[in-house]
């Protein structure tokens, strides 16, 4: 596979790969970092002529190894609690089984933008802090003056409401 095509594939599947990494790490900064490491590894493999098709499952396997390596390093440095290997494996399996088309990805993005518009006040603010500000739940709780459990419940309800709002639109189902 040529380097330009590899680059295109990589950028085209960025969200899919990042999603998988985030599913396991639950930290956007770490996920971005592992994605970059994965991209470097993939480009190096490509330069050496070692690329497998189809691209995404292969790239996900490269990412899976990077996640494991990242956690090994961090655990050695005692920076995080160990991540269960079982979760990493079953996450990879889950994403392998449930690939999605680009049309569907775009449809979800458009629907979610509309659904977000209906949220106001503190719930919207908490989502901002969690997903834009990258704050942890205890940090949001501290800032809001709520308990961790209360923030957790509020975020959980907000996500559920958004998921239901997106699912109500038939266009996403059609775009599978």
């Amino acid at each position: 596979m040529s380097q330009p095509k590899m680059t295109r594939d990589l950028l085209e599947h960025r969200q899919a790969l990042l999603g998988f990494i985030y599913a396991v790490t639950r930290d956007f900064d770490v996920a971005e970092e592992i994605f970059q490491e994965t991209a470097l590894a993939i480009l190096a493999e490509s330069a050496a002529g070692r690329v497998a098709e189809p691209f995404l499952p292969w790239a996900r396997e490269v990412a899976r190894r990077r996640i494991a390596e990242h956690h090994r390093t961090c655990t050695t440095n005692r920076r995080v609690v160990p991540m269960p290997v079982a979760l990493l494996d079953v996450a990879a399996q889950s994403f392998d089984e449930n690939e999605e088309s680009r049309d569907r990805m775009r449809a979800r993005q458009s629907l979610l933008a509309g659904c977000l518009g209906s949220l106001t006040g503190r719930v919207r603010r908490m989502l901002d802090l969690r997903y834009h500000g990258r704050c942890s739940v205890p940090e949001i709780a501290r800032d809001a003056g709520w308990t961790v459990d209360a923030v957790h419940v509020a975020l959980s309800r907000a996500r559920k409401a958004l998921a239901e709002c997106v699912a109500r639109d038939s266009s996403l189902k059609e775009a599978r």
Partner: protein
Amino acid sequence: MERLRFDALLDRHADGIATSAEADELAALLKANPEFRREFVERTRLEITLHDLLSTQNATARPNGNVKAGRGRKRHASLRKSPWLLPFGIAASILLAIGVYVLWVPQGMKRGQETLARVSAATNAHFSRANRIEPLANANVLVNGDLISTDNDGRVEIDYADGTRVTLESNGRMNVSLSNGAKRVRLLSGEVSASVAKQPAGQAMIIATATAQATIVGTQLRLKDRDGETRLEVTQGLVRLQRSSDGRTVDVAAGQVAVAASGRDLVTEALVKTPESPALVALGTPLLREDFENGRMEGWADGVIVPGGVEGSRYAISASSSDANASPHVDFSAVRLPLVRLPGGTRDNEWIFTVQRGLILQFSFFLEGEAGSIRVQGFDNEQHDNFGVNLEQPAVGRWTTVQLHVDAFLHNDPQRQSEPLKQGTHFRSLQFQAESPSRKPTRFLIDNVILAAPAGTDVPRN
């Protein structure tokens, strides 16, 4: 019951508060139930999309107090105001002032201060530390916070212990520092290039300008800060460029370039490494020269100006096509060229150039895809038809410079190719067209279009 437990575990996992035992339990439930696996993936996709959307929507309306900390983590203003904020702020300021005084002792580098990097080559460069400015010399040690500057003809190379090398070109200023073990370079003006060794997890190197910042795990790149815009060229690896004004990001891969500037799309384009072929004939004074460096489409009817181009160039023209299945092409039209514009002229008495013996058309192109040939042709006002040549099997994936002899252009109609292009006729358009056998869209960039006679040849100007 299992469903309720799964939902609860998934939420705790999503919020990053699941214990190891709960993560194990979640893994077991996922393993046993394909529907749970589907929901797990759906949930993650929703969160990633949420993250992307909120990052974009909030980019222009960040709350006060949104500061960087740790690994680039963003912070927002508090949801509630703390009554301790003001006194705490004053106390913190006093402590900070003391800290600054202790760090910036008048003697320059303090005993025990950590070495950040060493200068491996320095020409006409200075460094500023503790309010003192001194000439920079080879083997000088740099410490956290040093400000480095170069003169008109200056240049500095600094080497970090891990093999990372940063080069500041002439007329540049940069600040080097270390934050939580991660390298930081703030480019205040000028141009830096960097070859970055693989950085430790959680300690990606950041090179920032006033308008953008690049996060680097390990790669080779060049970052320029000029006229309020930041240009990033990546030659190895992958770099994320974030525009400061709105927080938008773009991943720039090897062989690509991106420009962060207000009012311009933050997109990547092909980068260029191939130098011009040494076999090219030296050209004399050009009758026509287009390098697109003003970023405008003057004289060009089709295509779009994009960042990138041959080495040292900021912009090129990218061919476009209204039909995605057709070959992209660009038209070069005389109508808008002041060089040849005649008062009260019409299409028939306006032209780009007059055909003369010895004229050479030189241009550089970058092709991506499966183009089988490039067609270069012009419309002859007097003979009322197109004349041109085909470049068969053009190079793909790299910039290539070619020279064509205009008086060897042939009639488009194969039946009439015996009719020569007459001297003294006028070309009113010049078209570059990439033709793809598979009819798939092809990216086709053109830069540095020059029309001239060989050096030393006397060709009268139009």
